[in-house]
Protein backbone atom coordinates (compact mmCIF):
# COMPACT_ATOMS: atom_id res chain seq x y z
CA UNK A 1 0.00 0.00 0.00
CA UNK A 2 2.52 2.59 1.07
CA UNK A 3 5.39 3.65 -1.08
CA UNK A 4 7.94 3.98 1.70
CA UNK A 5 9.85 1.27 -0.10
CA UNK A 6 10.62 3.66 -2.93
CA UNK A 7 13.27 5.04 -0.65
CA UNK A 8 14.42 1.54 0.31
CA UNK A 9 14.79 0.50 -3.31
CA UNK A 10 17.21 3.31 -4.01
CA UNK A 11 19.24 2.33 -0.98
CA UNK A 12 19.05 -1.35 -1.92
CA UNK A 13 20.19 -0.68 -5.48
CA UNK A 14 23.18 1.15 -4.09
CA UNK A 15 23.82 -1.70 -1.70
CA UNK A 16 23.95 -4.28 -4.49
CA UNK A 17 26.73 -2.31 -6.12
CA UNK A 18 28.68 -2.15 -2.86
CA UNK A 19 28.13 -5.69 -1.58
CA UNK A 20 31.22 -7.35 -3.06
CA UNK A 21 33.53 -4.55 -1.99
CA UNK A 22 31.96 -4.71 1.47
CA UNK A 23 32.67 -8.42 1.79
CA UNK A 24 36.24 -7.93 0.59
CA UNK A 25 36.80 -5.14 3.10
CA UNK A 26 37.54 -2.76 0.25
CA UNK A 27 35.06 -0.03 1.15
CA UNK A 28 36.12 3.23 2.77
CA UNK A 29 35.02 3.48 6.38
CA UNK A 30 32.15 5.89 5.74
CA UNK A 31 30.65 3.71 3.00
CA UNK A 32 31.03 0.61 5.15
CA UNK A 33 29.12 2.35 7.95
CA UNK A 34 26.31 3.21 5.55
CA UNK A 35 26.10 -0.39 4.36
CA UNK A 36 25.94 -1.68 7.93
CA UNK A 37 23.34 0.91 8.91
CA UNK A 38 21.22 -0.29 6.00
CA UNK A 39 21.67 -3.96 6.94
CA UNK A 40 20.12 -3.30 10.36
CA UNK A 41 16.76 -2.54 8.75
CA UNK A 42 16.84 -4.48 5.48
CA UNK A 43 16.42 -8.23 5.65
CA UNK A 44 16.48 -8.52 1.85
CA UNK A 45 19.97 -7.06 1.57
CA UNK A 46 21.13 -9.06 4.59
CA UNK A 47 19.94 -12.23 2.87
CA UNK A 48 21.55 -11.15 -0.41
CA UNK A 49 24.86 -10.61 1.38
CA UNK A 50 24.62 -14.00 3.10
CA UNK A 51 23.96 -15.65 -0.28
CA UNK A 52 27.03 -14.04 -1.82
CA UNK A 53 29.12 -15.12 1.17
CA UNK A 54 27.83 -18.66 0.89
CA UNK A 55 28.53 -18.73 -2.85
CA UNK A 56 32.06 -17.43 -2.43
CA UNK A 57 32.73 -20.04 0.25
CA UNK A 58 31.22 -22.87 -1.76
CA UNK A 59 32.74 -22.27 -5.18
CA UNK A 60 36.44 -23.03 -4.60
CA UNK A 61 35.57 -26.22 -2.74
CA UNK A 62 33.18 -27.35 -5.44
CA UNK A 63 35.89 -26.89 -8.07
CA UNK A 64 38.37 -29.05 -6.20
CA UNK A 65 36.10 -31.77 -4.91
CA UNK A 66 33.94 -32.38 -7.96
CA UNK A 67 35.87 -32.20 -11.23
CA UNK A 68 33.70 -31.82 -14.31
CA UNK A 69 33.45 -35.17 -16.19
CA UNK A 70 34.90 -35.15 -19.73
CA UNK A 71 31.53 -35.73 -21.44
CA UNK A 72 29.91 -32.92 -19.44
CA UNK A 73 32.78 -30.60 -20.29
CA UNK A 74 32.44 -31.49 -24.01
CA UNK A 75 28.68 -30.95 -23.95
CA UNK A 76 29.07 -27.59 -22.23
CA UNK A 77 31.73 -26.43 -24.68
CA UNK A 78 29.58 -27.53 -27.62
CA UNK A 79 26.54 -25.69 -26.25
CA UNK A 80 28.62 -22.59 -25.64
CA UNK A 81 30.04 -22.61 -29.19
CA UNK A 82 26.56 -23.03 -30.66
CA UNK A 83 25.30 -20.15 -28.53
CA UNK A 84 28.14 -17.93 -29.75
CA UNK A 85 27.46 -18.90 -33.37
CA UNK A 86 23.76 -18.13 -33.03
CA UNK A 87 24.59 -14.69 -31.69
Amino acid at each position, binding site marked *: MADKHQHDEVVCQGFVELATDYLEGALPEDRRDLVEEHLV*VCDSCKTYLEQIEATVEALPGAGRDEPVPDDTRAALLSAFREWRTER
Partner: protein
Amino acid sequence: MNAYKFLRPGAVGPFSGVRWLPGEWVEAEALSACERRHLPLWIWEELWEVELGGVVVSRAHKLRAPRARLGRQIEAWTPTSAKAFARACAWRAALHASGSLRDAGFGDAAETFAGGGDLQAVRRLTSELWDELPHAVRRPIGMASDGASDALDTIASDDPYEVVRGAAVVAYTAAMTAQHIGGSDAHDAERAHQADWLAAELGLV
Protein backbone atom coordinates in the same frame (compact mmCIF):
# COMPACT_ATOMS: atom_id res chain seq x y z
CA MET B 1 31.80 10.05 26.90
CA ASN B 2 29.39 7.17 27.41
CA ALA B 3 29.53 4.70 24.55
CA TYR B 4 27.30 1.77 23.74
CA LYS B 5 27.33 -1.25 21.53
CA PHE B 6 24.48 -3.42 20.28
CA LEU B 7 25.50 -7.05 19.82
CA ARG B 8 23.95 -10.34 18.77
CA PRO B 9 23.18 -12.98 21.44
CA GLY B 10 26.29 -14.06 23.34
CA ALA B 11 27.98 -10.67 22.84
CA VAL B 12 28.79 -11.40 19.20
CA GLY B 13 29.52 -8.54 16.81
CA PRO B 14 26.67 -8.32 14.26
CA PHE B 15 28.99 -7.68 11.33
CA SER B 16 32.37 -9.01 12.47
CA GLY B 17 31.03 -12.22 14.03
CA VAL B 18 33.61 -11.75 16.79
CA ARG B 19 32.60 -12.72 20.33
CA TRP B 20 33.38 -10.02 22.90
CA LEU B 21 34.39 -10.98 26.43
CA PRO B 22 33.08 -8.54 29.05
CA GLY B 23 35.86 -6.64 30.80
CA GLU B 24 38.56 -7.75 28.37
CA TRP B 25 40.32 -5.09 26.31
CA VAL B 26 40.26 -5.62 22.56
CA GLU B 27 42.66 -3.85 20.22
CA ALA B 28 42.15 -3.36 16.50
CA GLU B 29 42.60 -0.72 13.85
CA ALA B 30 39.11 0.69 14.33
CA LEU B 31 36.66 -0.72 16.85
CA SER B 32 33.17 0.71 16.66
CA ALA B 33 30.59 1.79 19.20
CA CYS B 34 27.99 4.51 19.25
CA GLU B 35 26.80 7.43 21.27
CA ARG B 36 23.45 7.38 23.02
CA ARG B 37 21.92 9.61 20.34
CA HIS B 38 22.64 7.03 17.63
CA LEU B 39 21.31 3.97 19.45
CA PRO B 40 18.11 3.71 17.35
CA LEU B 41 20.21 3.11 14.23
CA TRP B 42 22.06 0.04 15.46
CA ILE B 43 19.50 -2.12 17.25
CA TRP B 44 20.25 -5.81 17.88
CA GLU B 45 19.39 -8.27 20.64
CA GLU B 46 21.90 -7.19 23.32
CA LEU B 47 22.94 -3.73 24.47
CA TRP B 48 26.21 -3.14 26.31
CA GLU B 49 28.08 -0.22 27.76
CA VAL B 50 31.52 -0.03 26.23
CA GLU B 51 34.68 1.73 27.35
CA LEU B 52 36.84 3.13 24.57
CA GLY B 53 40.58 3.72 24.77
CA GLY B 54 43.11 5.63 22.69
CA VAL B 55 42.05 8.32 20.25
CA VAL B 56 38.26 8.22 19.91
CA VAL B 57 36.90 9.56 16.64
CA SER B 58 33.26 10.36 15.95
CA ARG B 59 32.32 9.55 12.36
CA ALA B 60 28.75 10.01 11.17
CA HIS B 61 26.72 7.64 13.37
CA LYS B 62 29.58 5.70 14.93
CA LEU B 63 32.50 6.11 17.29
CA ARG B 64 35.85 4.60 16.34
CA ALA B 65 38.67 3.74 18.70
CA PRO B 66 41.74 1.50 18.69
CA ARG B 67 40.87 -0.07 22.06
CA ALA B 68 37.57 -1.09 23.60
CA ARG B 69 36.12 -3.32 26.27
CA LEU B 70 32.61 -4.26 27.22
CA GLY B 71 31.27 -2.97 30.51
CA ARG B 72 27.89 -3.97 31.84
CA GLN B 73 25.07 -5.33 29.76
CA ILE B 74 21.96 -3.14 29.77
CA GLU B 75 19.59 -5.72 31.18
CA ALA B 76 16.58 -3.48 30.62
CA TRP B 77 16.94 -4.01 26.86
CA THR B 78 14.81 -7.10 26.32
CA PRO B 79 12.26 -8.26 23.74
CA THR B 80 9.63 -6.64 25.95
CA SER B 81 11.30 -3.22 25.84
CA ALA B 82 12.01 -3.64 22.12
CA LYS B 83 8.29 -4.26 21.55
CA ALA B 84 7.43 -1.17 23.58
CA PHE B 85 9.91 0.81 21.48
CA ALA B 86 8.35 -0.48 18.27
CA ARG B 87 4.89 0.52 19.51
CA ALA B 88 6.10 4.00 20.51
CA CYS B 89 7.78 4.50 17.12
CA ALA B 90 4.67 3.37 15.26
CA TRP B 91 2.66 5.99 17.11
CA ARG B 92 5.26 8.62 16.27
CA ALA B 93 4.89 7.74 12.59
CA ALA B 94 1.12 8.05 12.91
CA LEU B 95 1.48 11.37 14.72
CA HIS B 96 3.72 12.71 11.94
CA ALA B 97 1.15 11.64 9.34
CA SER B 98 -1.86 12.99 11.23
CA GLY B 99 -1.35 16.53 9.94
CA SER B 100 -1.63 15.29 6.35
CA LEU B 101 -4.94 13.62 7.19
CA ARG B 102 -6.24 16.77 8.85
CA ASP B 103 -5.17 18.92 5.89
CA ALA B 104 -7.01 16.56 3.57
CA GLY B 105 -10.22 17.02 5.53
CA PHE B 106 -10.22 13.79 7.53
CA GLY B 107 -10.28 15.33 10.98
CA ASP B 108 -11.65 12.32 12.86
CA ALA B 109 -9.09 9.99 11.35
CA ALA B 110 -6.36 12.54 12.13
CA GLU B 111 -7.40 12.46 15.79
CA THR B 112 -7.07 8.69 15.83
CA PHE B 113 -3.63 8.90 14.24
CA ALA B 114 -2.53 11.48 16.79
CA GLY B 115 -4.17 9.73 19.71
CA GLY B 116 -1.78 6.91 20.58
CA GLY B 117 -4.51 4.32 21.09
CA ASP B 118 -5.10 1.26 18.96
CA LEU B 119 -2.57 0.56 16.19
CA GLN B 120 -5.12 -1.66 14.46
CA ALA B 121 -7.22 1.47 13.99
CA VAL B 122 -4.40 3.18 12.10
CA ARG B 123 -4.17 0.27 9.72
CA ARG B 124 -7.93 -0.07 9.34
CA LEU B 125 -8.53 3.64 8.76
CA THR B 126 -5.77 3.80 6.16
CA SER B 127 -7.35 0.92 4.29
CA GLU B 128 -10.84 2.41 4.50
CA LEU B 129 -9.84 5.90 3.41
CA TRP B 130 -7.14 5.01 0.87
CA ASP B 131 -9.20 5.53 -2.29
CA GLU B 132 -10.51 8.86 -1.01
CA LEU B 133 -7.09 10.22 -0.04
CA PRO B 134 -5.50 12.76 -2.36
CA HIS B 135 -2.37 11.28 -3.92
CA ALA B 136 -0.28 14.03 -2.36
CA VAL B 137 -0.96 12.78 1.18
CA ARG B 138 -0.97 9.04 0.56
CA ARG B 139 2.70 8.51 1.14
CA PRO B 140 3.06 9.58 4.80
CA ILE B 141 -0.26 7.97 5.70
CA GLY B 142 0.75 4.74 4.00
CA MET B 143 4.09 4.82 5.79
CA ALA B 144 2.33 5.27 9.13
CA SER B 145 0.10 2.32 8.28
CA ASP B 146 3.14 0.22 7.41
CA GLY B 147 4.70 1.25 10.72
CA ALA B 148 1.55 0.15 12.56
CA SER B 149 1.53 -3.21 10.74
CA ASP B 150 5.21 -3.83 11.41
CA ALA B 151 4.80 -2.88 15.06
CA LEU B 152 1.83 -5.24 15.46
CA ASP B 153 3.85 -8.07 13.88
CA THR B 154 6.76 -7.23 16.16
CA ILE B 155 4.59 -7.21 19.27
CA ALA B 156 3.08 -10.58 18.30
CA SER B 157 6.43 -12.26 17.65
CA ASP B 158 8.13 -14.70 20.03
CA ASP B 159 11.38 -14.63 18.06
CA PRO B 160 13.93 -12.24 19.67
CA TYR B 161 15.60 -11.58 16.32
CA GLU B 162 12.31 -10.71 14.64
CA VAL B 163 11.44 -8.46 17.57
CA VAL B 164 14.61 -6.36 17.44
CA ARG B 165 14.62 -6.26 13.65
CA GLY B 166 10.99 -5.12 13.74
CA ALA B 167 11.82 -2.44 16.31
CA ALA B 168 14.64 -1.12 14.12
CA VAL B 169 12.41 -1.09 11.04
CA VAL B 170 9.54 0.74 12.74
CA ALA B 171 12.00 3.31 14.12
CA TYR B 172 13.31 3.80 10.58
CA THR B 173 9.76 4.16 9.28
CA ALA B 174 8.97 6.82 11.86
CA ALA B 175 12.11 8.76 10.93
CA MET B 176 11.34 8.53 7.21
CA THR B 177 7.73 9.61 7.78
CA ALA B 178 9.00 12.63 9.69
CA GLN B 179 11.44 13.36 6.89
CA HIS B 180 8.69 13.20 4.29
CA ILE B 181 6.66 15.77 6.23
CA GLY B 182 9.37 18.07 7.51
CA GLY B 183 12.64 17.33 5.74
CA SER B 184 15.98 16.27 7.18
CA ASP B 185 15.64 18.38 10.33
CA ALA B 186 12.41 16.54 11.17
CA HIS B 187 14.15 13.22 10.48
CA ASP B 188 16.97 14.09 12.87
CA ALA B 189 14.53 15.34 15.49
CA GLU B 190 12.61 12.06 15.29
CA ARG B 191 15.80 10.04 15.72
CA ALA B 192 16.71 12.24 18.72
CA HIS B 193 13.26 11.61 20.19
CA GLN B 194 13.77 7.86 19.76
CA ALA B 195 17.18 8.01 21.44
CA ASP B 196 15.67 9.94 24.36
CA TRP B 197 12.90 7.33 24.63
CA LEU B 198 15.46 4.52 24.81
CA ALA B 199 17.60 6.39 27.34
CA ALA B 200 14.62 7.05 29.60
CA GLU B 201 13.18 3.55 29.36
CA LEU B 202 16.52 1.77 29.75
CA GLY B 203 17.89 4.08 32.45
CA LEU B 204 20.88 5.21 30.42
CA VAL B 205 22.88 8.15 31.75
